[in-house]
């Protein structure tokens, strides 16, 4: 007997399969978001999904909820406007690292300062995937991309420091650590005030293959080897995942 996949109720199933590349991490995060909403018995009416631009920006359109696909980088002010106009709504943002930290970086700085009660899930793949694989604000030092052929020389943004500086909820997980990531999203949705979940995700098509990975499985395994779960610290090290409230 097959188990009914009830989390699919949160998706527009006639729009599936999604259009992302084979091996992409976005679908994993989409499923995690649905599972978290299901766990918390979120009603489909009363929940709003917002996303920015980029591969991950397409996420919002797959949910069977009212959703807004904003201009590039503007997911946060739109989400804040929605939440402040109707505080009964659950407002979730799913977007990428380029959208949230690059073009929309200023909004993240101020949204966390205002501590608006929204949940942000960042699919952080350290690359501008949709446009072909350019360096992003979270690309690691010396990493090779289309725009950094001799290796990235700029320090990646320290999102943890930015979010926790304003005493907001911050969690980091990866697309390999499924249960941990689900726990992060579920706790973030329950948090009153701004909550931010950074999920390290893989882009094999426009990032991994240029860095010597054979397939996205290898990238997932690198998350397994790199990241250790830390449950009792107030600061996550570079190679740790966990929740900071």
């Amino acid at each position, binding site marked *: 007997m097959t188990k009914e996949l009830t989390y699919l109720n949160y998706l527009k199933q006639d729009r599936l399969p999604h259009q992302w590349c084979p091996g992409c991490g976005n679908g994993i995060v989409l499923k995690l978001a649905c599972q978290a909403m299901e766990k918390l018995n979120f009603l489909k009416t009363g929940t709003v999904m917002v996303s920015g631009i980029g591969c991950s920006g397409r996420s919002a359109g797959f949910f069977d909820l*009212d959703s*807004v696909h904003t201009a590039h980088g503007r997911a946060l002010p739109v989400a804040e406007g929605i939440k402040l106009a109707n505080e009964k709504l659950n407002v979730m943002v799913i977007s990428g690292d380029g959208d949230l930290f690059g073009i929309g970086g200023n909004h993240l700085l101020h949204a966390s300062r205002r501590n608006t009660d929204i949940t942000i899930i960042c699919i952080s793949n350290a690359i501008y995937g949709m446009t072909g694989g350019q360096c992003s604000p979270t690309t690691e030092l010396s990493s090779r991309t289309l725009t950094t052929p001799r290796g990235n020389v700029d320090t990646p943004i320290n999102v943890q420091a930015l979010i926790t500086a304003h005493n907001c909820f911050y969690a980091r997980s990866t697309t390999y650590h499924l249960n941990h990531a689900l726990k992060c999203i579920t706790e973030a949705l329950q948090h009153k005030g701004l909550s931010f979940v950074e999920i390290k995700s893989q882009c094999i098509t426009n990032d991994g293959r240029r860095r010597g990975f054979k397939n996205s499985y290898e990238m997932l395994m690198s998350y397994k080897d790199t990241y250790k779960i830390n449950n009792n610290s107030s600061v996550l090290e570079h190679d740790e995942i966990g929740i900071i409230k």
Partner: protein
Amino acid sequence: MTKKLLQGNQAIALAAVKAGLNFFAGYPITPASEILHELVNQKTVKVLQMEDEIASVNAIIGSSLAGAKSMTATSGPGFSLMQESIGHAHMMEVPLVIVNVQRVGPSTGMPTFPAQGDIMQCKYGSHGDYFPIVFYPNSVAELYEFTFHAFNAAEESLSPVILLSDSYVSHLYETIEEADYPVSNRTLAPLGTSNRHFTGLTHKDSRPVTSDPGVHKKLIKHLETKQKKVSRKYNNYEYIENKYSDILLITYGALSRAVYDLKEDFAIYRPVRIFPMVDKIKNIAKKYKEIVVMEMNAGQYVNEIERLLHREVNFIPILGGKIDLNEIWTKLRRIKKKR
């Protein structure tokens, strides 16, 4: 009806409250800040001071979709920052009111001096094809009245409506009658009630369709017809006929207040709904041998007038924020002599 002495910006804020404003997001800028100052003291309006104008316009896109009648106010530099999201709001069909109190540009220019340099920006500022409704009143009473019309037109057309002003009209103090104009109610269901997808991508039935030219053509046609249909309700213009003159002056906003003094010698036409252009001007213009467009920029609306009338038009630019009737007279005499 009560009579009140109000500043132009104050009149916009008070009228907005009466027209049902629930949500305002803005960023301080001369000469529009007084609207923000007035609204923070209003109990029925949620006011957000955002980090910039991009955040402001996006916050009201969100709040409007969530069911609140929403407005922002700015000046030229902030209006430039908003352009991308204005196009986005047209594409998603979000009712908004955006007030632009113009000052001298380009760039930081002369922040406290009036100008009319954002005419083209209203119509063509964002990329792609869209068909904005733009009002440009010239007195405190008109600012009050057209704030209502802007809100109504926004609700009826489901689009961002621009209310233009300039630092001269917005900083005038005039006695006005606080009339109650009819108010159009919200027709768009708020977020959280269905499974719609609002997107800036070309779309059909709430779904992105990004490789079908037919769908895009239909969408643009829909936006155009909708805007034209709604704007027909607001055919606002002022025409001062002059049977003894064969010269028609076309002017609007702050400048038109000074040009009124020339009505003994010339006919005057003043559009209030400046976009989509009021067709009436075609008939009016036929009666006059010369058309003179005057505006406080180096030539913006004049091109639109020429295009609409299919004839040559004289142009008098007023630059630097100073309106000098002597200067205008000298130039008008030259046009008279030419004939």
